[in-house]
């Protein structure tokens, strides 16, 4: 699925119940992170749920594996990964993720007060991108 398709799918969902159900589907479809990565080293700090993020660097592009023990957060992670995966560090830097989440009707999940780890995850992705520039 492309990001455009995802945005279109979300545009048909006009209440939170349906949006959450769709997020749950996305979460269920997110590939599980191999257990060996579920260590403190790859944990994203400060979350209400456990969140892991593993960066991989290949051919000038960044690829991330992510996971959480909470299903809605997994759904959100799968969107974040769809947005950032296999992009160059400078592409990552220029992505306005807030705009995309607003289009999805999920913008509240990116507020710093929403302690679901998404915000920390995005910061971490940007940090890895910055480091590999």
């Amino acid at each position, binding site marked *: 699925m492309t990001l455009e398709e995802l945005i279109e799918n979300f545009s048909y969902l006009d209440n*939170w119940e349906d949006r*959450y159900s769709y997020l*749950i589907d996305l979460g269920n479809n997110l590939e599980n992170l191999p257990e060996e990565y579920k260590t403190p080293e790859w944990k994203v700090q400060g979350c*209400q*749920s456990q969140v892991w993020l593993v960066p991989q660097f290949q051919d000038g592009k960044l690829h991330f594996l992510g996971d959480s023990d909470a299903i809605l957060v997994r759904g959100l992670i799968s969107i974040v990964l769809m947005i950032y995966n296999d992009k160059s560090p400078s592409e990552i830097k220029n992505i306005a993720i807030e705009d995309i989440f607003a289009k999805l009707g999920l913008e509240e999940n990116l507020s710093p007060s929403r*302690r679901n780890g998404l915000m920390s995850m995005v910061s971490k992705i940007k940090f890895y991108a910055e480091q590999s520039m």
Partner: protein
Amino acid sequence: MYNVYEIRKDFPVLSELVNNKPNVFLDSAASAQKPLSVINCMQEIYNHHYANVHRGIYHLSEDITASYEEAREIVKNFINAASSDEVIFTRNATESINLVAATWGRKFLRAGDEVLISQAEHHANLVPWQMLRDEIGISLKVFPIADDGSYLEEEYLKYLTPRTKLVAVTGMSNVLGTIFPLKKMAKQAHQNGALFLVDACQYIVHNKTDVQDIDCDFLAFSGHKTYGPTGIGVLYGKYKILDSMPPYQTGGDMVDTVTYEKTTFMPSPARFEAGTPAIVQAIGLGEALKYMKNLGMENIKAHEDELVSYAKSKWENVKGLTLVGTAPDKGGVFSFVVDGIHPSDLAFVLDKEGISVRTGHHCAAPLVHRMGYETVARASFGLYTTRGDIDALLPAIRKAQKMFL
């Protein structure tokens, strides 16, 4: 008892909508809502009476100094301290406990001395002692609680040793709701030669608190949980002990004489209140305690006890719902997990239904782990909580179960 629907009018936010749903606020243990009398009192001061305290001899400053010291008097009466000099204003309970660790602890504890806490402590009554342990080599002992969250007297007594110099315990667990028998524990600590510190953050909101009756040496609480403002807390200490302690921070307002060579310090409470204090917050706290006193702590307790029995009757024996912390002596704090649903996922759905609960480790991670969980959800009650609030939870959980399971 009071009419809860009447007093809810004192808390405007309770009748507002949250996510277009009636506001079901079940997170008073994290921070309580504020009655209008507190909000109005603070606004009135900022509008008409504001100045610094303990400074000028002009009218406004003298006036507000009187109000600030009156707030101390209100606190003194609320906890039945022997003197208002035993009441120190801090930022919050966390700072109160840190103050004791940093001043009394550093001065009177030596390597090998033991500080004893329970398994049910908030990080605020755990980490300061760990820091002290790492700094001066005391040892930090933790006495176990039962699997249902109950206090275990035999364990407590087992852990009280001749080396125990301080027992520091919560009066009521912010995760399990367990209420500890403070008076008896204090007596046993004293018989053993140890001082007794109470983290009364939760306890004082729900139980009449009398420091002389408990006979505790220190007691800490936060204003924002007692229906008062943020930024203000209290440390109570017996005067003789406070008088033996060095200052915590130093600067203005707490000094007696200062020369470039040497400074002498004021007695308590000024000694422990360096710099301009949270003046308006202290006065707001006084107003909040007045509000509770007017309702009557016995009435608040009766109202909440009734809610606790009601909640137990509704939530115990529900398939798929597990209460974490079911001690017989329990106040209005209910941690729970729903089979197959991560607490964070659950909270997302409850939020959309207008229900505020807290999820996570509740700043008591070792306790949550000891109970067998990584994270739990928590519903907690205040003096304005209704049976309707309790009734709202299960249908919302059912809705979450439909979505997630």
